[in-house]
């Protein structure tokens, strides 16, 4: 890999390709696309947490003037689910409803008022069943089955894995500590509500939908509707934030499609904010216990982890969440022996799934606080303990994760230096404190969601006669800026100005497959595919020009949109002229690039979940002030140092980390996806679910640390998700430094702080 200043496009702050459309209001999100005769679709939802459907009578609704179609579970009684092992959802409920908000029927009408009126006319008779809301109850209760496929009680799946010699690890320890932690649910709370617009004509379905995964949506639609995939076109218009919540096929996408097929007219369903919260698929509530053995100097000898995940009513991504919860604890610290036991259970609540930092956020919070407690018990500096255990590049973890590039120690150095750790930790006045935490995350999963031998990402690039370059990529820009990155990578690899590159993306009909925007995979995988295609075109072009101009190909190069001969200052011709020359010689200026990770699976069952072609690393410090009268916590500053491999676009990379840190901050102190005793959501709106505002957020300072990964495109890894993990424990550890109280449950409210302060005064 070359030095940064060798590059013409990458490595520079580059505004987004869609930025101007977004500041002028011309960017079209799914709900903005206007088609004539479009009907409004609405979904009828279950009022019961758990009930058997005895009958559904839609006659009155169908008879209402203005209603064009009504559909129920009987219209598509085919199960689907994002994971092959969890095919447990129907587009609309069949036989049973499993949470308050579960989809029962859908109506398409000439306007919203008529559609809502029609929903009221649908007569559903239920036999109410006992509901399970507590995951502990779900673990043992066999008389109530939320999902019929569970064998033991309501346990979806259990996992038990042991790596290394646990007995020896604990025997060698000078000190062993055990702690219990709980991280409650959080929701993505993206600003754009889900929206799907379906059109059906000439036997072909076109769905414009706010999805992170057009390819998976196309597959699921094909399965459920019984329409061949080549007759289904899924397009992701401009998307208003996903964070995992739009990362799997969702009921509204099927409902809109079914209604469009039945009515013969376009149908749009857009969720209300309440429906967004009920659709959920957010962070699992996880109960965790940790037992860790260390030497006197803090060197870790063994870690034992148990977790119980409250999955809600359906599978979603949950089995992966469960496996990740343990798999992602074996770095960024050396753990010579590790075991974990986990279970994911069903409860009668909205399904949990993947949310930014998927699987690793809850255990990372637990482990980093646990580690600080161990350091405090032994009188050690938490920074030193982390440094002592920090993994180095080119190592293999105890659960066989292959770590290549790794600048974790640099991240620790960076934040410690910035915050003046040695001078401040433990030395600030009562009420003020600083805390530290580390973390790491995958750069894309090494295996696709459905097993197949094909590339995870493909990109096609075409050069026009005027020198314009078009990239066709299935990658979904969900706001993170992937279209901009693909433009930059293509321009860099091809040697043309960025302005001459345009990116066409996320349309299953016109773009080759990319698996989607999840697990921080796009920069790495779509970036590599794009770079490969661009380099291939460049080779074709140079070979053709060399032949036509009677030069040696090795003496030719393309830079800044011109063809140069080595050693000459004046270009031979423009890139466009070179393209014409090549095309006239019969050379097709298009190429396909692809990326598939190497075989990285561990040699054990479930060993395919966790491995990634590269890992990002990070450390954060939080500075807090606690008002000991009111219990209010003010986080004044968070410093984040993140090893992202290489900053292709520092402007968007730092923006990703700033957003992730603030999301982590929100989960720590404000956000609570909670339920009332009967299973009703306690407040599916932005008043009750408190997303951080301008006035809440800490000052966030991001340092991009570059380890230059050997396999990433120009060395890039990821930053959008891994930079969330350390935020939560860094804040909690800082609060301990401020008031001497530990907190093991999040979110952390002023009430909990006051109670802890009072308890500490009673028994210091």
């Amino acid at each position, binding site marked *: 890999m070359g030095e940064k200043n060798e590059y013409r496009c990458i490595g520079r702050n580059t505004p987004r390709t869609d930025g101007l459309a977004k500041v002028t209001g011309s960017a079209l999100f799914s709900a903005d696309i206007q088609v004539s005769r479009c009907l409004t679709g609405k979904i009828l939802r279950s009022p019961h947490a758990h009930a058997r459907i005895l009958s559904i009578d839609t006659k009155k609704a169908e008879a209402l003037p203005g209603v064009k179609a009504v559909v129920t579970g009987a219209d598509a009684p085919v199960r689907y689910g994002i994971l092959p092992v969890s095919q447990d959802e129907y587009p609309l409920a069949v036989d049973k409803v499993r949470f308050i908000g579960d989809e029962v029927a859908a109506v398409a009408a000439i306007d919203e008022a008529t559609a809502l009126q029609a929903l009221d006319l649908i007569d559903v008779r239920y036999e109410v069943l006992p509901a399970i809301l507590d995951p502990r109850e779900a673990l043992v209760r066999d008389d109530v089955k939320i999902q019929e496929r569970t064998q033991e009680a309501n346990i979806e799946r259990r996992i038990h894995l042991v790596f290394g010699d646990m007995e020896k690890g604990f025997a060698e320890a000078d000190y062993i500590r055990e702690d219990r932690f709980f991280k409650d649910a959080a929701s993505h709370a993206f600003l754009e509500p889900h929206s799907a617009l379906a059109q059906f004509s000439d036997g072909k379905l076109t769905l414009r939908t706010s999805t992170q995964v057009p390819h998976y949506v196309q597959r699921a639609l094909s399965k459920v509707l019984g329409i061949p995939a080549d007759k289904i076109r899924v397009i992701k218009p401009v998307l208003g934030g996903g964070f995992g919540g739009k990362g799997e096929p969702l009921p509204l996408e099927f409902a809109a499609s079914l209604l469009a097929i039945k009515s013969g007219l376009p149908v749009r369903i857009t969720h209300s904010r309440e429906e967004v919260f009920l659709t959920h698929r957010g962070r699992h509530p996880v109960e965790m216990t940790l037992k860790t053995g260390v030497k006197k100097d803090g060197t870790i000898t063994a870690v034992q982890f148990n977790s119980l995940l409250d999955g809600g009513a359906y599978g979603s991504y949950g089995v992966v969440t469960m496996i990740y919860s343990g798999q992602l604890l074996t770095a960024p610290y050396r753990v010579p022996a590790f075991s974990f036991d986990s279970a994911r259970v069903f409860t009668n609540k909205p399904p949990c799934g993947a949310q930014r930092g998927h699987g690793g956020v809850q255990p990372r919070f637990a482990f980093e606080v646990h580690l600080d407690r161990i350091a405090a018990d032994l009188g050690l500096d938490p920074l030193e303990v982390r440094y002592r255990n920090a993994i180095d590049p080119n190592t293999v973890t105890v659960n066989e994760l292959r770590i290549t590039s790794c600048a974790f120690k640099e991240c620790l150095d960076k934040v410690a230096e910035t915050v003046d750790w040695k001078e401040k930790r433990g030395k600030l006045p009562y009420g003020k404190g600083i805390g530290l935490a580390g973390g790491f995350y995958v750069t894309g999963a090494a295996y696709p969601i459905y097993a197949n031998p094909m590339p995870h990402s493909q990109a096609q690039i075409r050069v026009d006669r005027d020198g314009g370059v078009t990239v066709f990529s299935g990658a979904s820009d969900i706001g993170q800026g992937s279209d901009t990155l693909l433009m930059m990578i293509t321009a860099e690899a091809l040697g043309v100005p960025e302005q001459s590159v345009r990116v066409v993306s996320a349309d299953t009909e016109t773009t080759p497959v990319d698996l989607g925007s999840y697990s921080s995979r796009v920069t790495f995988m779509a970036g590599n595919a794009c770079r490969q295609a661009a380099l291939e075109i460049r080779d074709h072009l140079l070979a053709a020009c060399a032949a036509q101009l009677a030069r040696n190909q090795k003496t030719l190069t393309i830079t800044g949109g011109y063809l140069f001969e080595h050693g000459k200052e004046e270009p031979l011709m423009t890139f466009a002229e070179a393209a014409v020359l090549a095309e006239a010689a019969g050379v097709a200026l298009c190429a396909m690039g692809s990326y598939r990770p190497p075989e990285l699976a561990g040699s054990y069952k479930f060993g395919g979940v966790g491995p990634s072609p590269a890992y990002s690393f990070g450390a954060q410090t939080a500075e807090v002030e606690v008002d000991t009268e009111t219990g209010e916590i003010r986080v004044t500053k968070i410093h984040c140092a993140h090893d992202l491999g290489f900053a292709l676009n520092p402007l968007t990379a730092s923006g990703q980390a700033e957003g992730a840190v603030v999301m982590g901050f929100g989960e720590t102190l404000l956000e609570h996806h909670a339920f009332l005793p009967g299973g009703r959501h306690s407040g599916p709106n932005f008043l009750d679910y408190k997303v951080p505002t301008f*006035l809440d957020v800490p000052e966030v300072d991001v340092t991009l640390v570059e380890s230059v990964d050997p396999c990433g495109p120009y060395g890039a890894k990821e930053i959008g998700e891994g930079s969330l993990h350390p935020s939560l424990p860094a804040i909690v550890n800082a609060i301990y430094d401020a008031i001497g109280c530990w907190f093991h449950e999040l979110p952390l409210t002023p009430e909990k702080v006051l109670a802890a302060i009072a308890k500490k005064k009673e028994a210091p």
Partner: protein
Amino acid sequence: MRTLKFILNGDPTETGVNDGETLLEVLRNRLGLTGTKQGCDQGECGSCTVLIDGKPVLSCLTLAVRVENRHVTTIEGLAEGGKLHPVQVSFHEKGAIQCGFCTPGMVLTAKALLDRNPHPTRNEIKEALAGNICRCTGYKKIVEAVEQAAKMMAEKADG
């Protein structure tokens, strides 16, 4: 149904509306101006912010009939003669946009702030924009963009 007359982005506009219709519904569904976003429909997120007589207002909580004869500015009307407003330029350049769903409301609220307070402090910016939620950026780059816009506008006024 009644006829509503108002000035939309500088142009006299006439449309039929129902009594209960919100300004947001009229803009998006009757007039096709989809730059104004519906994020919550409950007045909590700020995505639907438009300017009425220059002041930021939540269009999802405003009955359309209330804007009779008044000036309404939406994001589509901010660029004058195709020239972007400094707030638009700086949001783009400073990376203050990610998904862009909050952007129209955020830009208009910032524009209204700078019109009434051309040299806001950092805290004044945060207070003025506190009713607009952004889930992507963490707000840092938005504050920086508004600061840059203030500078650009001051330079323009001086020059």
